[in-house]
């Protein structure tokens, strides 16, 4: 049996770990709240822009933009959004698992894939397992701005414009609630009309364009894609903090259990030592 002093040392070290995990839990909780606020603050823009993009895809424009046209798929692009840091449970692993399934499916069809990782973990994933990476963005911090994603999105849009990729997807975690985060894949390009607006699709119509329709549509659709990716990034941060909070909470609980067990062992060892000492004294007294 370990001596009392050794066990005391162990208890101290586990207590220190518990302090750290508890602090991380609290930090994650407060960051999660802020991330959630940011997520809901940026949602209206993404929704409105999405609505505009939907209207455009439903209108019968004089000019058909490449972003709205379905074409034969030879290469696809994936924007993969993950966290920069670990210690957040299975968040990133679950995302990669979903991604691998998707990749496998395209691979089996003979379609090649380009990647654009956002976040350190995605970057590391492709560094380890290979994959053609066109652009990446890491270390975005807790409060990324839209300008953080403009660069990577532009690279992917250029690739689409040049015919290097024929479809673009974004993979990120969806924030369901604090306990649940769901990895999702959504198509960015070509823009697909999801729920046709009954009133708008009754008869053909088109916008009045103040300037050149082509220029205008390119800018709007580029912003649409940017906002979708940005929304994904912001949502993923909320997921990361939620997952970290839960992971750290269970780590603190586990540390508590270990401390209890160790405390019991320590008390037993102490008692045994006292008993032994007593019996030695008694034996010594009897011998005299």
């Amino acid at each position, binding site marked *: 049996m370990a001596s009392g002093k050794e066990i005391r040392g162990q208890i101290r070290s586990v207590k220190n770990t518990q302090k750290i995990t508890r602090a991380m839990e609290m930090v994650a909780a407060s960051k999660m709240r802020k991330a959630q606020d940011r997520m809901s*603050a*940026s949602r*209206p*823009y993404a929704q*409105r*822009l999405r*609505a*505009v993009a939907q*209207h*455009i895809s439903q*209108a019968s424009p004089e000019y058909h933009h490449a972003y709205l046209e379905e074409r034969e798929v030879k290469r696809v692009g994936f924007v993969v959004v993950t966290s920069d840091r670990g210690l957040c*449970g*299975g968040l990133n*692993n*679950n995302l*990669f*698992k979903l991604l*691998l399934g998707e*990749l*496998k499916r395209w*691979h089996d069809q003979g379609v090649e*894939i380009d990647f*654009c990782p956002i976040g350190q973990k995605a*970057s590391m*994933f*492709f*560094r*380890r*397992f*290979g*994959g*053609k*990476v*066109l*652009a*990446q*963005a*890491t270390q975005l911090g807790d409060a990324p*701005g*839209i*300008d953080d994603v*403009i*660069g*990577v999105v*532009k*690279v992917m849009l*250029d690739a689409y414009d040049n015919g290097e990729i024929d479809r673009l997807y974004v993979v990120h975690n969806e924030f369901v609630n604090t306990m649940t985060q769901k990895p999702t894949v959504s198509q960015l390009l070509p823009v697909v009309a999801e729920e046709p607006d009954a009133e708008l699709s009754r008869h053909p*119509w088109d*916008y*009045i*364009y*103040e*300037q050149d329709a082509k220029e*205008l549509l390119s*800018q*709007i659709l580029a*912003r649409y894609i940017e906002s979708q990716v*940005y929304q994904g990034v912001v949502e993923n941060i909320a997921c990361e903090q939620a997952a970290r909070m839960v992971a750290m909470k*269970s780590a603190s609980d*586990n540390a508590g259990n270990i401390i209890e067990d160790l405390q019991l062992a320590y008390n037993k060892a102490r008692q045994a030592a006292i008993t032994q000492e007593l019996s030695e004294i008694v034996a010594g007294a009897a011998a005299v």
Partner: protein
Amino acid sequence: MAITMHVDIVSAEEAIYSGPAEMLVASAENGDIGILPHHSPLLTMLKPGEVRVVKIGGEPEYYYVSGGMLEVLPHTVTVLADTAMRADSVDEAAAIRAKNEAQQALKDYSSAVDYARAQAELAEAVGQLQTIQRMRKKYGR
């Protein structure tokens, strides 16, 4: 009561205004435009400048946007304001930065994904997590 339309002013990072209005004036690329209810569908880019929303009762409210877009539908007007500095040269620079970062991080990458290895390692990681959860349930922790 005056005829009104619904106005939304949103930027990528937050919602700025949402509510009914009698008129909206914004500086479009080709000059200022005023929008009244039942305007035909219109789509245009905005220049940096102010957006004036005339609320019910004729009270104006001013917002500054550093560019963006204006979408007009018969009953709703949406201003999508930019928050970031937008210019082709700025965007281009950002794109080059993103490309460089990728090249630096992946100097010795192979362009084929190693599915077998990735799957094996992921399965291991997921397995570990599941085992931990199962143990926790079993021992009631």
